[in-house]
């Protein structure tokens, strides 16, 4: 299974100009991480489109954000907790009725272990 380090990070990312254009090998690596099959013929097209989007995003680098807290949640809420008790009913059969392939309550996929 591929790991996150498949895309080689720069030693110290040059934040003054992060959006270098993506080349086809970068697109191929991203597609692999995202588990999306992309035909070789389509890599160029995606590289161009994604590079355009990164150009748009590049504008962020103009703003000085030193000392600014990142905002993950609009209302700055903390995760609500509840007692550690089982509250859900077992509806496996109900949920599996539209599954692609099942057997004995298990989901079937191609063999994983060699």
């Amino acid at each position, binding site marked *: 299974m591929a790991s*996150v*380090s498949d*895309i080689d*990070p*720069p030693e110290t*990312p040059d*934040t003054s100009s*992060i959006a270098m254009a*993506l080349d086809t090998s*970068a*697109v191929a690596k*991203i*597609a692999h*991480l*995202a*588990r*999306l*099959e*992309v035909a070789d013929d389509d890599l160029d097209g*995606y590289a161009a*489109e*994604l590079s*355009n*989007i*990164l*150009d*748009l*995003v*590049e*504008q*962020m*680098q103009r*703003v000085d*954000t030193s000392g*600014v*807290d*990142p*905002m*993950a*949640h*609009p*209302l700055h*809420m903390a*995760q*609500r907790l*509840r007692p550690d008790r089982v509250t859900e009913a077992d*509806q496996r059969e*109900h*949920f*599996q*009725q*539209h*599954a*692609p*392939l099942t057997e004995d309550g298990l*989901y079937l*996929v*191609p*063999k*994983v272990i060699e």
Partner: protein
Amino acid sequence: MHDKTIAELATGLREKAFSSRELTQHYLDRISRHDPALNSYITVTADAALAAADSADQAIAAGVGGPLTGIPIAHKDIFCTDGVRTSCGSRMLDRFIAPYDATVVERLAAAGAVCLGKTNMDEFAMGSSNETSWYGPVRNPWDRERVPGGSSGGSAAAVAARLCAAATGTDTGGSIRQPAALCGITGIKPTYGRCSRWGMIAFASSLDQAGVLSRSAADAALLLAAMAGFDPRDSTSADEPVPDYAALLDGDLAGLKIGLPREYFGEGLDAAVAASVQEAVKRFERLGASVREISLPNSPLSVPVYYVVAPAECSSNLARYDGVRFGHRCAEPKDLEDLYKRSRAEGFGAEVKRRVMIGTYALSAGYYDAYYLKAQQIRHLISDDFRAAFANVDVIMGPTSPTTAFPLGAKTSDPVAMYLNDIYTIATNLAGLPGMSIPVAPADGLPVGLQLIGNYFQEGRLLNIAHRLQRETDWHLAAPPGLDD
């Protein structure tokens, strides 16, 4: 019947001028007649609708009906509806039958609303024109060669064409407000956390919010009242009491302070759209409001920030579509990796794939700080701009969309051009504030929307402000031609 307000329909049902069954059949007939040209519905649930209408008629006869009992509505196909296909506009979920009702669906059904069917939308809510749907584009009822806006384009077109009394939608970057503007109807996106996201297929979890598309603020108030409220099943649900929105509609506007952000009236805004918006603002002055210019200096960064945050969150949310437990599975997978890659490549359309890939890149090692973290920092600055503005004004107004409805296909070859349609709406989602769009004077025969942005949990105030304008003007009563029968 289809031109009546929801309150008028409720009165008609109560006084037995017509039954919910007749009203529902009326809408189903209109859908058969007019929807082939618009494509606003993906699934019409005729039998279930008529059964629900019969139950509603019984409730009304027993004297236990409420303001929405027997009223036919439609749900954006992003809300899970038990036993009914829930496609999210995608091939990935084309054959997915939802095994439960979303909270929003459950609450509207409990209020007695009748569900006519599921409306078309941009795939996985990603789009501003309803052109990315697996089920084909939706056409704007005002001009069939133009887009209705997106991603809630189906709901907007269905409401504008009067193929339902009102509809639900979702708004992550403007997807209720922008189509409402392009279709000449009213749309409201409440404060983040106001409505439950349980059963609402996730796109970007810190931005998504359910809302209403309707022909008036008064109608929207009735639906929002039923939909809103704390839900323990949604970990981001706000535990805030729900006001009686209908009771707040007629409040006086004397002393209301309106702020117009200078950044929302600059380059890129169509002159005729600007003129309609300014005319509406003058009406508010006649109602006793005062207007001043304000500044939201970090606004120009909304679009770049959104196109990091939303794709990043979507790449995470869409990881669940792996062909294993539900949704599309490719034929004859060679191994597990092939199963994932081909199921996803076949199930997702081009825009979804672009956003998943951008999001994956932005979150990957070496780039997370420069992209995602940076975006979340600027998001904080954008939110602070609003906080500062609301210290001096009660409501912020401006255009909802920089242009009127554009032709189908005009922006599909340039994703970035498409993204700029949401330039005025996106900041509201980043800050989590409530926003509305209401129709004002058209420009060159096409609808124009005025956007209203309120402070946190001020939906009642927004509905009130919109309603007072709708009492004085008839822009919201205009209907697209050729759909009267």
